């Protein structure tokens, strides 16, 4: 037995299987990319031409503020619904439950079309002072609920239902001892919610709400069905005229991908902010 450590070579396990699968996957990906760029219908020139067209950019802006508005309204409504569901009042609990049941239980596309055709259900929107007959407001529904308004309504009401569940989960994740400590200091329930419970719930709420925002950005594409003037509507309008469907879908995809990447970066920053005081949160 010669055990001369200087001359003994250590041979790591050779993962022939790994190399083979890696090679196979790279090969398939290369084949796909070649097929993609060889296709005469991809038209990179057309993609470049339309990527920064003013009506495409307008669509991007509309998509962005639709997302923002729906998320803000959805979050505010979501907090309200979550607090209602956790309330001691059985009527509030029930109403909140029913709202969430309806808006989570039906497809967003159905809701968008429904609000787009709201005028078919209620032809006029009228507001009167009860018992006096004084009319404060009376207009045809189609004038008030335009495509944009319908889009905002459908997206934010739908978001409220999802946000409510996320926020309720966040509130429940905060230790009871926190509420007790706040109560013992003489803080009212509302103050406790605002200053003690919600800031801690945020840590739990933010990651899923980041997902919600990303989902929302992409869901805005659905409003093209009622001419919502968003990015998808703009792109559709173009390819319905020039039939260059694939290049224009690439234009939309590139923008959605860029915006989602931006949102992910924003989410990371916000998560770091609300992780203060927690070891893994990033402070120090």
């Amino acid at each position, binding site marked *: 037995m010669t055990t001369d450590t200087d001359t003994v070579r250590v041979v790591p396990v050779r993962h022939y299987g790994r190399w083979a699968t890696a090679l196979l996957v790279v090969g398939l990906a290369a084949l796909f990319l070649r097929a993609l760029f060889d296709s005469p219908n991809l038209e990179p020139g057309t993609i470049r031409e339309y990527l920064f067209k003013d009506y495409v950019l307008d669509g991007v802006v509309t998509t962005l503020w639709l997302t923002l508005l729906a998320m803000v309204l959805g979050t505010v409504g979501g907090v309200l619904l979550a607090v209602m569901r956790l309330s001691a009042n059985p009527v509030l609990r029930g109403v909140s439950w029913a709202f969430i049941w309806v808006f989570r239980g039906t497809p967003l596309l159905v809701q968008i079309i429904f609000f787009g055709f709201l005028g078919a259900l209620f032809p006029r929107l009228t507001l009167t002072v009860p018992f006096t007959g004084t009319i404060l407001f009376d207009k045809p529904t189609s004038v008030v609920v335009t495509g944009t308004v319908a889009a905002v309504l459908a997206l934010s009401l739908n978001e409220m239902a999802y946000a409510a569940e996320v926020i309720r989960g966040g509130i429940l994740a905060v*230790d009871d*001892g*926190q509420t*007790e*400590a*706040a*109560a*013992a*200091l*003489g*803080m*009212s*329930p509302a*103050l406790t919610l605002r*200053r*003690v419970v919600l*800031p*801690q719930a945020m*840590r739990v709420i933010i990651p899923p709400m980041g997902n919600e925002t990303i989902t929302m950005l992409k869901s805005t594409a659905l409003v093209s069905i009622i001419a919502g003037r968003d990015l998808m509507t703009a792109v559709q309008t173009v390819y319905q005229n020039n039939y260059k469907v694939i290049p224009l879908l690439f234009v939309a995809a590139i923008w959605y991908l860029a915006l989602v990447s931006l949102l992910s970066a924003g989410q990371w920053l916000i998560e770091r902010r*609300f992780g*203060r*005081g*927690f*070891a893994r949160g990033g*402070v*120090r």
Partner: protein
Amino acid sequence: MTVTEQTPVTATRPMVRAQDVVKRYGPIEVLKGIDLSVAPGEVSCLLGPSGSGKSTFLRCINHLERIDGGQLSVDGELVGYRRHGEKLYELKAREVARRRRDIGMVFQRFNLFPHLTALGNVIEAPIRVLGTPRDKARAEALRLLDRVGLAEKAGNYPGQLSGGQQQRVAIARALAMHPKLMLFDEPTSALDPELVGEVLDVMKGLAADGMTMIVVTHEMGFAREVADSVAFLDGGVVVEAGPPDEVLGNPRHDRTRAFLDKVL
């Protein structure tokens, strides 16, 4: 059960007065008629085996638990109720909150707000509840943190402090509301043994300054040394109460004796 009323400090109106306090969780009676009186400036320790009801009783004093019978008053005001003629009206959350301002509480698990620094924890309630200007609240909080020996930790989050340090911040947080009564719910039970002393030292300092304190504890040394009175609870009643020398040194009841034999 018999309670010999011990008011060693003064003979004025008691700070806390409990008469036949009953508390039930469903069919289970946790407190079966507690009688206890604590004078202003008195330090009272509640002792007893776990499940004896001592923590529950403490939580009744600032209405974290609703009582199901008897009467409980702090500084002459009923806890959780307002008396009008022959009727008791339950107080609204806002009114309960107002009364709790004057009663400080320290918890076994500290319950500091983890998203706020030590300083943030101490100034939160004075600013938001009492409306103290931020500068003034800050100055006072730094003074309180200094008093509990943590002036240099003002900017640290609770997660960066040891258990003993967290509990001292919790005491400073309670003191910032200028309470007339301090409740301690097993303040050292969650601490590593070597950290117990620093918290007890702060509490001794408070007692020496004349704070009225009710302390649920298993620290017999603290009870013997600092308490003016000791009450031994078992099975939801006060079995025996009196000066620590008597209750701890020469217990009259078998149950007290059996408990002390086990813990001493």
